[in-house]
Each structure stands twice: as structure tokens, then as C-alpha cells.
């Protein structure tokens, strides 16, 4: 019984997101109203071997700090689910 980690990486507030802007503009062109702002991020799914949640969280957070996110410009959030 392993765990699945879902890492969500988003741009920090104040960091310009031209892709989000382009999506926002495109939604407007398609006639969708009521969108104040769009920010684009990414989701990384990891299938983990261990089943200890505390250890898994610690380990995935270390992966985020070292590689998965660039903390100069990005925030990350880790969710764990039973696989």
C-alpha cells in the first residue's frame, strides 16, 4: 500500500504570469465573463513506495525544495492520498 503525492506548483503573488494572462485574454475572446484573473501552475504526481505519511511528506517537501519547485518564484503544496 503506497501513497500518492500530488504536488501543486504555482507562481508566487507578484510574479508576472504571461501564460495566465494569455489564457485570461483567450477566455474573454471566447465570451466567458466573470473571470478576474488567471494564474497557471503545474501538477506533479508521485507514486511513493512507503506508507508512512509523515516520512512521505518530509521527503516530498525536500524534493520540492531541491528540484520540483523554484522557490525564488514558485510556491508548492503537497497532498498525500492512499494509492
Amino acid at each position, binding site marked *: 500500500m503506497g501513497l500518492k503525492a500530488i504536488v501543486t506548483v504555482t507562481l508566487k503573488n507578484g*510574479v*508576472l504570469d*504571461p*501564460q495566465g494572462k*494569455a489564457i485570461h485574454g483567450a477566455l474573454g475572446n471566447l465570451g466567458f465573463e466573470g473571470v478576474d484573473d488567471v494564474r497557471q501552475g503545474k501538477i506533479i504526481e508521485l507514486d511513493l513506495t512507503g506508507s508512512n505519511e509523515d516520512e512521505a511528506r518530509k521527503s516530498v517537501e525536500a524534493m520540492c525544495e*531541491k*528540484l*520540483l519547485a*523554484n522557490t*525564488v*518564484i514558485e510556491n508548492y503544496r503537497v497532498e498525500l492520498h492512499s494509492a
Partner: protein
Amino acid sequence: MKTAIILFPGTNRERDMAVALERASGAKPAIVWHGETELPQGLDLIVLPGGFAHGDYLRCGAIAANASPIMPAVVNAAGRGVHVMGVCNGFQMLTEAGLLPGALMRNASLKFVCRDVHLHVAHNDSPFTRNYTPNEVIRVPVAHGDGNYFVDEQTLDALEAEARVLFRYCDDAGALTEDANPNGSQRNIAGIVNEAGNVMGMMPHPEDMVEHTFGGIGGLPLFEGLAKAA
């Protein structure tokens, strides 16, 4: 001058870089595969060249900077004062490795930009600019999709106060205009050095302006200056 150019899977500018370095210094650089864990002894300069290392997957330069086996040796050499230069993808790697502050984001236009630009050279009190004159305007090409330099305001002010911004995008008269900025970089920044002054990253390609047949020699003084410093 003893130079090593690091070759990552997906790097494609190592040969242009080698030609420029040999033209300026007379010595052929060593090309070192990223899977090595040791650099040649007695290096004066390490170059991280342009390209698309590791396919630019995850973030440009991220996998090269954080997971390529050679990088700890590069970081170590930088700490010992060896000159390190990152161009384009190499600049992205230097920020990802934490050797330079900030990050290179997607171009504000969302378009890959491939054209000549003008650069304003701030001063020549650096091994990377010693063969230029202060406020000189040079012409070199850019070719990138992620060259939009971003860092917090406090660091920007510090970079400027410490004269660590070496190159800025400008028009042909040297004015730092918005139109002359190809990617949306804060304060038109094209190239910076670290606090110690021995690590430099820039998005444009000086190695592609070292012969008149290329259209100019605006990049040559950078390499000649490094050769002189060695």
C-alpha cells in the same frame, strides 16, 4: 587560458562557444560531459553554454543545475573563485543552482525571440567586461523563450548599487527603452555577476558575434578580456 565547456544532453551551443574562446585565447577548450564528477585541473574558466539541457523539462536549466553529476564540481570551483560564465540556458542554470540571484521566466510576449539586440555595457571593472569601454553599446544576438529576468525589488536595488548588472538591453543609441527589451526583463537586465564577481550569467550570445562574417565582433572583447584575466 584553460577552459572547460560543460556539455549537457540537449546543449547545442558548445561548438560556437569553443570557436569564440579559441579565437580569443588561442587555446582549445576542453568539452566536459555533464555525467563526469570531476573537472580538469587548473581551470581559469568554466562555461555553461546555451541550448535546451535535459529538454528544458520541469523548468529551463533546473534538471541540469540540480541533478547533473558535474554540477557540484562547478559550484565548488565557483566558490574557489574560478571564473564561471553561463550563456542563455547556462544563465538559467546558474540561477537554478543558486549561484546567481533571481530566475529567468517565460518571455513577456510568450514568443521565442531570435534576433540581434543591442546591449549597454555598464562598466569595465569586471573580468567579463574589461575589454569594453564603460557605456559602450554592442550588438549581439538573442535566441530564447525564457529570458525574462525576475528578482525581488530589494535584490534588484542591491544588484544595481553593487554594480553587478553588467549588460542591459538598449536601443542602438544606448537608451534603455521598453521597445529594446526583447523579453520583459526587469530594468532591462541582460547579464549580471555574483557578489564575488567571478560568476556571470547573460541571456544574449556573445559567442555568435566574434567574426566580421557573422555580422560583427561585438562579443569578441568579452572573450579577449577573459583571456587577459587568466
